[in-house]
């Protein structure tokens, strides 16, 4: 890929402008971003997240052949089969998607990696790999489709289940939930957000921003399981979400452009520049939250957890830390595309070594 980040950004800008047109800047229709038909339950939150991914990819004009879709095992992890049918995908093993993504991204650093995991996949069996992906600042978008239960195995509690949550078959959960965002933050993630599958606009804005971010971007999306955990008392239900969601701010995504557009800063508005030059505009609502401050993020996350508030938005963003690929100092040609002569040192080099041994 020879296009520079700036050119790409310009294209994205154009794409965003033509969001109402029938084709995007690659000349593709929305339908071209579909996958196979979903086999999830009707109304499942995961399906609506898949829809967001398709929309965003189309709007940004993502070249699907340069995208990889990664997942673990679960209803959520099945979804990559249902979007971006022209992208390679990998439905790996339960809870260990991050390591597979790490390998794939290292093999070809030009790829855009979108990973999806369930809350069981991410916070129960998978919390170890999750933490280490954060720590490495693995450049990918990691979407957690968080419904508080194991959907695919029929409704057991996951590690994000509410304390006191009642399920048909398992009774009452007595354990406190792990908070995906807090976990990400503690482990040094550089883009930490929460949203709600029912909040179309916010989810899409966050996804776009995440795709412009350098490093790991985690979006914890509350995604109701209509079959096993959608009763109103569950904090992971549509009803609860609709009633209780408190957005931290109104988010909008401004693609990167060549000519600077002056964006004035108004009172209560904040602008954060992303790695590829795109910007995210935050119109603060309830809180005076500064998403570039880690301390503020801890604070707001812990307080909302203690108060039982369903806060959504971008909690934390930092473009400063190098991502894993930068640390590895790789050649610009992806490792997977190096040819034999680049991969095999010379006969003389071996002879020299042998002389020394």
């Amino acid at each position, binding site marked *: 890929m020879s296009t520079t980040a700036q050119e790409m950004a310009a294209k994205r800008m154009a794409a965003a402008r033509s969001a109402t047109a029938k084709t995007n800047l690659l000349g593709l229709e929305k339908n071209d971003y579909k996958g196979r038909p979903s086999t999830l339950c009707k109304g499942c939150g995961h399906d609506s997240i898949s829809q967001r991914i398709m929309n965003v990819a189309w709007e940004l004009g993502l070249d699907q*052949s340069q995208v990889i879709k990664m997942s673990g095992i679960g209803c959520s992890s099945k979804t990559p089969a249902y979007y971006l049918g022209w992208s*390679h995908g990998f439905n790996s*093993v339960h809870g*260990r998607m991050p390591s597979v993504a790490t390998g794939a991204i290292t093999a*070809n650093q030009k790829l855009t990696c979108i990973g999806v995991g369930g809350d069981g996949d991410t916070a129960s069996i998978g919390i170890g*790999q999750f933490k280490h992906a954060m720590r490495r600042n693995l450049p990918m978008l990691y979407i957690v489709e968080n419904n508080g239960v194991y959907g695919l195995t029929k409704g057991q509690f996951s590690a994000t289940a509410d304390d006191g949550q009642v399920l048909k078959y398992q009774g009452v959960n007595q354990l406190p939930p792990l908070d995906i965002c807090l976990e990400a933050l503690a482990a040094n993630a550089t883009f930490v957000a929460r949203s709600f599958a029912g909040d179309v606009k916010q989810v899409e804005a966050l996804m776009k921003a995440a795709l412009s971010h350098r490093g790991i971007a985690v979006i914890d999306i509350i995604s109701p399981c209509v079959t096993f955990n959608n009763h109103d008392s569950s904090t992971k239900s549509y009803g609860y979400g609709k009633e209780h969601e408190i957005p931290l701010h109104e988010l909008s995504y401004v693609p990167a452009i060549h000519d600077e557009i002056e964006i004035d800063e108004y009172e209560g508005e904040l602008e954060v520049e992303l790695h590829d030059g795109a910007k995210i505009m935050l119109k603060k609502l309830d809180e005076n939250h500064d998403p570039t401050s880690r301390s503020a993020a801890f604070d707001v996350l812990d307080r909302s957890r203690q108060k039982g508030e369903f806060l959504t938005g971008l909690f934390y963003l930092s473009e400063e830390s190098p991502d894993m690929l930068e640390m590895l100092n790789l050649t610009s040609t992806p490792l*997977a595309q190096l040819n034999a002569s680049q991969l095999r040192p010379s006969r003389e*080099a071996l002879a020299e*070594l042998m002389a020394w041994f």
Partner: protein
Amino acid sequence: MTIAVQETPVQPVDVLENVNDFAINVATANGSGSQTSNGVLVRALFKMGIPVTAKNLFPSNIQGLPTWYIIRLSKDGHIGRRETMEVQVCMNGRTVAEDMAQVAPGGIVLYDDSLPIAARRKDIVYYPMPVKELVKAADLPFALRDYVANMVYVGVVAHLLGIDLVEIEAALLWNFDGKAKPAQLNMDMVNRAVAWAQENLQKSDGFRVEPMSGFNEGKIMADGNTAAALGAIFGGMTITSWYPITPASSLAENVAKYAPKLRVDPDTGQATYAIIQAEDELAAIGMVVGAGWAGARAMTSTSGPGMSLMAEFAGLAYFAEIPAVVWNVQRMGPSTGLPTRTAQPDILSAYYLSHGDCRHVVLFPANPAECFEFAVTAFDLAERLQTLVLVLSDLDLGMNVHISEPFAYPEKPMDRGKVLDAEAVKALGGTWGRYKDVDGDGIGYRTLPGTPNPQAAYFARGTGHNEYAVYSERSEDWEANLQRLRRKFDTARTLVPNPIVETNDDAAIGIISLGSNDGAVQEARSRLAAQGIATSYLRLRALPISTSIRDFIHSYEKIFVVEANFDGQLHNILTTEEPAQATKLISLAKCDGLSLSARFIAEGIAAGM
């Protein structure tokens, strides 16, 4: 300076001349730096042309526990482990009594004279070494004293046995990667010790070394893990993920040592490889699987416990058909077992790794040159067969230095397997199916993520799938897929390294063994030959077995299957692969933490005939 003076032996010992045919055992404490001094001795002897074998017996701790280093010299070129030791160097008070007790009659003992020595045997010669005094006299920086102290015995041994000091000096330089300063510092201490010995010791034994020729010419000396690391680097490895574990760690660490020299773009300083220390072995193999899927030559290295943790992912690599290489440098198991002792107990678990109907390609290198070679082969096979390839080394091969052929530059072009690029996909016009057996060898054509063609994409998965990689619960799809995988496994039989077979027309019995047992088997064969027992020998280098192995089994009345584990695991596998010949196969298995000795093998075969 009060210097110990040699006592004359209480009783004169028969001074039998022994040139280049004895074993030296150096007893020290772990973490005292004796790795350097012992390595220097071995290398000097090697450079003198003497066939030499080294076994480091170290404890699973970092500092203070007893460690032994056994250097065998064999003028006849035997490189198996030898059970008797004639020259004992005692540097460890905790073990001095037993160390002295185990010296062969007629042998000699060199001891740090500050050690408490109780009764003296009458059948061996004692030489004291005033280690403390010599170190003190050298006036070294405090931090270095303990390490350099070991050079005292290097000097005394060199003097008593006649090791060339020039070679000692060269070996020191080698050891310090060519850095003159530390080499000189150590050499000074060697020289002091030599000077002291010349003045104070009177040789009253017959052990001597002499330069010789005919064996070591053109050979190198290396450990298997370094060889494997270099093989990977020359084999086009692009990703090494790993998690530390004895005795595998030095494999990845040597990748990290050599790759920056060999695999960096000289213009940009950028790397053509990545090394990632994973958070555990599940992540290590997960990275390999992701990387292999995306087109990298990826590998990880571990030992038994790590391989067990990889079981689930191994099945994914097998079933989603992803190239992946796992090195298992074996140690004693079950469980954590003895992490610093050698064995070959993971043959069965490697072959059948993971639940479900899985069988894997497994390679068994026997020496450093083969570690290098198989590191390349493993990638070629993994990409050709689109599957997991396990390479089973062991602690003895991996961590001890061995005399070896120099590593052969890979002559065959890299085999990147059946990969379709965007044009090829286009040319197929939608008929491509990821798991279609177009060529009848069971191997489909794959595409890599990033291939710029919308039809190139497929969805990799560990779930049941049809030829187009689409999820399928149909019985026919499942069975067709497993049948193809079996076809692929049969293709593997034809591609894996052939065994090395040495036939003897007089032989009624055959020996099958693998890996680092080679030296001991060869020595056992010559012992048996001396007793009039002719043997043929097949050194298995891979699973699944090929026809040549079946043929070998057919050709002999009895086949002894020699291996360093408790359950006779290779014997078990051969039985299932050749049930018709099962009764011929006799298991000769031993697992005591040491590499097999020629004696065990020869006696076992003689007894089993």
